[in-house]
């Protein structure tokens, strides 16, 4: 599903991150480990096309990300990548259902309220459809963010510290949901985490060294 080749990303003039030539096949699941500052979030942002590497290539589903012009890269991200940030970051002015519809709109896909409701129902969130983000618990908001990421049938699901500030029960629930949903959708899953509870659930692990 994705392949990295001689990938380097430089912050400012001196700090440089070097990434091994990793790859993941379609449907595989893996965790990205490493100490703080090792570049876990940066790699996710590179994979999502939010950052541009100074050197090397990223191939996603046989598409060289750097070859796409910015606007197409944005559209490609909307359609093929589901990204779950550390915090849910749902738009407070929209309700849960509308937050999902926004994902369809921004990805330039036909807006299908029934599809949004199906995804919410499949994750046990349908009763939250009309609620505003302020009315959700942190765990509920995180699950809605997962529903939003899954909505457009992404090829690659990226999650950045999904267990951050969640208790054990919620961490288990969120990981069950993520792994189950990714498996069901046939999506590749890569989770960046420094949480041992998360590491324990994955056979495939990528380890990033401390920054050079």
């Amino acid at each position, binding site marked *: 599903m994705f392949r990295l080749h001689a990938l380097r990303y430089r912050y400012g003039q001196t700090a440089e991150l070097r990434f091994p030539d990793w790859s993941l096949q379609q449907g595989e699941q893996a965790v990205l480990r490493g100490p703080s500052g090792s570049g876990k*979030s*940066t790699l996710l*942002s590179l994979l*999502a096309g*939010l*950052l541009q590497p100074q050197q090397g290539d990223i191939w996603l589903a046989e598409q060289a990300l750097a070859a796409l012009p*910015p*606007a197409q890269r*944005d*559209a490609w*991200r*909307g*359609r093929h990548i589901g*990204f779950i*940030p*550390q*915090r849910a*970051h*749902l*738009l*407070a*002015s*929209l309700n849960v259902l*509308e937050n999902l*519809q*926004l*994902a*369809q*709109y*921004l*990805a*330039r896909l036909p*807006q299908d309220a029934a599809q949004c409701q199906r995804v919410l129902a499949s994750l046990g969130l349908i009763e939250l459809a009309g609620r505003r983000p302020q009315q959700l618990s942190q765990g509920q908001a995180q699950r809605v963010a997962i529903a*939003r990421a899954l909505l457009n049938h992404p090829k690659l699901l990226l999650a*950045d*510290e999904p267990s*951050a500030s969640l208790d054990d029960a919620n961490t288990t629930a969120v990981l069950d949901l993520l792994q189950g949903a990714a498996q069901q959708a046939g999506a590749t899953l890569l989770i960046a985490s420094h949480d041992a509870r998360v590491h324990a659930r994955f056979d495939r692990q990528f380890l990033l060294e401390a920054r050079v």
Partner: protein
Amino acid sequence: MNLFLLARRQLLARPLHSALNLLLLALGIATISLLLLFSRQLEDKLLHTAAGIDLVVGAKGSPLQLILSSVYHADIPTGNIAKAEADKLARHPLVASSIPLALGDNLQGFRIVGTTPDYLQLYGAKLAQGRPWQVSMEAVLGAKVAQRSGLKLGEEFASSHGLAAGGPLHDDNRYQVVGILAPSGSILDELVLTDLQSVWDMHEHHASEDDAEDGKPRDITALLIRYKTPLAILALPRQINAETALQAASPAMEAMRLLNILGFGLDALRAFAAVLIFSAALSLFVALYGNLRERRYDLAVMRLLGSSRWRLFASVLLEGLLLAAAGAALGLLLGHGAAEAIGRAGLTPGLNLTGLIWLKEEAALLLLALLVGVLAALLPAIHAWRTDIAALLSER
């Protein structure tokens, strides 16, 4: 879901901020709209009423007062002039036509004007009922006079002495209504028209012996003149003012002078409205810019979901535009509502201010409001465009 709905939701999410900005902009637009309506209608009224009258001749005094009293019926006359002198002037080779006016009485505050049927033709007046006056003490009512007084054809009324309501009644000599004019929007709507002889008959005891002819007074208040040739524009007023005891004044010039005098006040109000609009722009800018900090995660998530930088730019710009458009619409509504209310309350007598017309300039006002919205939102939109998503999303 679309950018328009999103922008609307973002504005509604901060109702107080949005309402205050909306109100500030609306007040500025309303003030300008009201001023536009007032100045345009005043200008139209002044020029329309004076159309067809090249020169007014009356007693010596203030030329503006002469024009206001004889053309707009809004001031007291400068005095009376001898009919014989006016007749002499009417036969002047540079004069094409003339209409005498004699004032002195009123009906419930509406002026009674003694004149000739030519005065009806000057404004293209049409009778809704009855016929023109033919003999002394027959009267034709303007549309507004008929409506306010409730007088019908054939009914009689007593005039009050003077030009304002409340004077002593001439109960011994009553007018009979023989005609009622159709509404025309002209000054005639607010006048009672009658024969010159009626005014003379009514004021026999006021007439000076010098002007009497066969024991009857022969004074008029003013003579409205139309030139035979453009050459008269310079020659005739100068000749009258220099060589006779009369005063000649040009309605066009006096109207422009009046508009210039009023213009200072209107300009001050326009400047005040401009300050209001500038304040609205500043307030909108501060609100949008300040709100960006709260919304930076929203913008980052939108990028994450596939939005291009330009869409983020457009979404913030749209918020400014939406608020500006709503402010402009509300402002125009308020401006027109205020104009109509002022007109209906009778606060602009003689002008009949209305808010039920739209001016071409108001399209420019709408564009100005939208421009204000765009300018206020431009910098915040540029900041949205430059949002560093990766840095924001990795914040803990």
